């Protein structure tokens, strides 16, 4: 009888019957749910980031000046031309133009309807001032400059309210990020409890594996592989459900046609980010299961 110890090569075998037990049955469904929520949050994050970019571009560099219409159009035009000349002299002003009447009508139409076209209503004049972002003049300064010449001038710096809107959008983005992190933590916690239950169930087997000389890592790997497989399956389901849900949401939003909301558009980037949830969830499950097993095994004899 000669039994030689064979040479080592990497060979994997599931010695633990983890696959057959009940402890892991709900894991994929929990994972699916978590990944579904994470996918929605991520899509939300992207949409908000998009909106923020659009707003950011809007802040760029325009100040609008309204001049109430006077009795006489010719006189008005002269005063406007004078104002534009003065504005162009101001430091930080790149250019100033009067908006064509037709454009003003278009802008007011949503509010006034066909009345906007009526000559009965005195439409204000609108001057668009392009400013250099770095040293743009303050609205009050322009107002102070023009008021002596034109009564009732009204200066709007869009930047001010756009900036506060932008701040709000950024904080919602942070909330979405925190939600994704919380989801990851909840997922990991689920894996921890599932793994512990599995270990309790297979305690005898684990002991025998130790007695025959298995390293903790050998045992942990079997739990880790199993958890990552379940994580993969679960996140696949989650993403598969999130896809149609997001498309439906976009469609509904598009139909409502809020003028105020930026057009919701799910870019390739969003879908890629959501797709990476699958390997990420599998990896989270694997690492967590491994760590859980290693930690509990360290307490065994």
């Amino acid at each position, binding site marked *: 009888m000669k039994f030689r*110890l*064979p040479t080592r*090569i990497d*060979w994997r075998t599931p010695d633990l019957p983890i696959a057959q037990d009940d402890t892991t049955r709900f894991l994929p469904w929990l994972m699916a749910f978590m990944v579904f929520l994470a996918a929605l949050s991520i899509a939300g994050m992207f949409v908000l980031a998009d909106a923020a970019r659009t707003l950011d571009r809007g802040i760029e560099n325009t100040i609008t000046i309204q001049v109430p219409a006077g009795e006489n159009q010719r006189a008005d035009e002269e005063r406007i031309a004078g104002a534009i000349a003065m504005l162009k002299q101001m430091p930080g002003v790149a250019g100033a133009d009067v908006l064509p009447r037709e454009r003003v009508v278009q802008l007011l139409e949503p509010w006034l309807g066909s009345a906007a076209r009526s000559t009965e209503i005195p439409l204000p004049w609108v001057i668009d001032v392009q400013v250099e972002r770095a040293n743009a003049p303050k609205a009050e300064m322009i107002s102070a400059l023009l008021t002596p010449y034109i009564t009732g001038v009204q200066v709007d710096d869009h930047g001010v309210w756009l900036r506060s809107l932008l701040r709000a959008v950024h904080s919602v983005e942070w909330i979405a990020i925190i939600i994704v992190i919380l989801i990851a933590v909840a997922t990991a916690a689920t894996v921890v409890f599932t793994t512990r239950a599995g270990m309790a169930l297979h305690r005898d*087997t684990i002991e025998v594996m130790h*007695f025959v000389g298995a390293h903790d890592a050998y045992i942990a790997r079997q739990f880790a592989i199993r958890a990552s497989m379940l994580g993969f399956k679960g996140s696949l389901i989650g993403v598969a459900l999130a896809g149609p849900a997001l498309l439906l949401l976009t469609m509904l939003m598009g139909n409502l046609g809020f003028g105020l909301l930026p057009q919701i558009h799910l870019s390739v980037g969003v879908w890629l980010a959501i797709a990476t949830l699958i390997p990420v969830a599998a990896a989270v499950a694997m690492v967590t299961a491994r760590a859980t097993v290693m930690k509990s095994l360290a307490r065994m004899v």
Partner: protein
Amino acid sequence: MNDVVRFESVGLRYGLGPEVLQDVSFSLDSGSFHFLVGASGAGKSSLLRLMYLAQRPSRGYISLFGRDISTTPRHELPGLRRKIGVVFQEFRLLPHLSAFDNVALPLRVVKARESEVKRHVEELLAWVGLKDHMKARPSTLSGGQQQRVAIARAVIAKPKLLLADEPTGNVDDHIAGRLMHLFGELNKLGTSVVIATHNEALVRSSGKRVLKLADGEVRILENIADDDADEFDSVFAADRGRVLL
């Protein structure tokens, strides 16, 4: 130091109970062969558990292969355990694995090549008379068959120390003889063997040394046929009395 096992003043108690083992001191040379005898409940299984690192002593010093187990870091324990083959009193076969996979376990945890695993395991299972039961789950095997699977698992990796708890308890004399022969062969190759048993005839006919466990202490009986005959007899007196009743 040629000791495979060394115990010095080892004590063991379970929880708050009395000391099952008190002041146990002995050492086993490499290549030695001992039977471990003692009345039921004397602590034979407990002593073996200490030796295969399933249990830590409450006090005292234990070394295995020259290493103090209390200072051996956890990640080096598998290395020690791989040198120890164990036949458990209650077998402890993995119920979801076939006889083949159970026996293959010690080779697989050291990542042996699968072709080697197959060759060794098949050869050994055939040797213990289970050629036709390789694929059987333990639950479908008889007690004696399970015991042989357990023994095959214990010896497959050619351990330096073989510990067997009642390995011949469930088999007929013919199989018992074969198993003893297997242990003997392993012993000839240098493996130290400790077999806990109640089988008086087996111990007598072997003429091997005896570790006698009584009152929580261990004594080594060198020659049970002669000098230590009385001491050896005393172990089984109680058992014989029970049989007579």
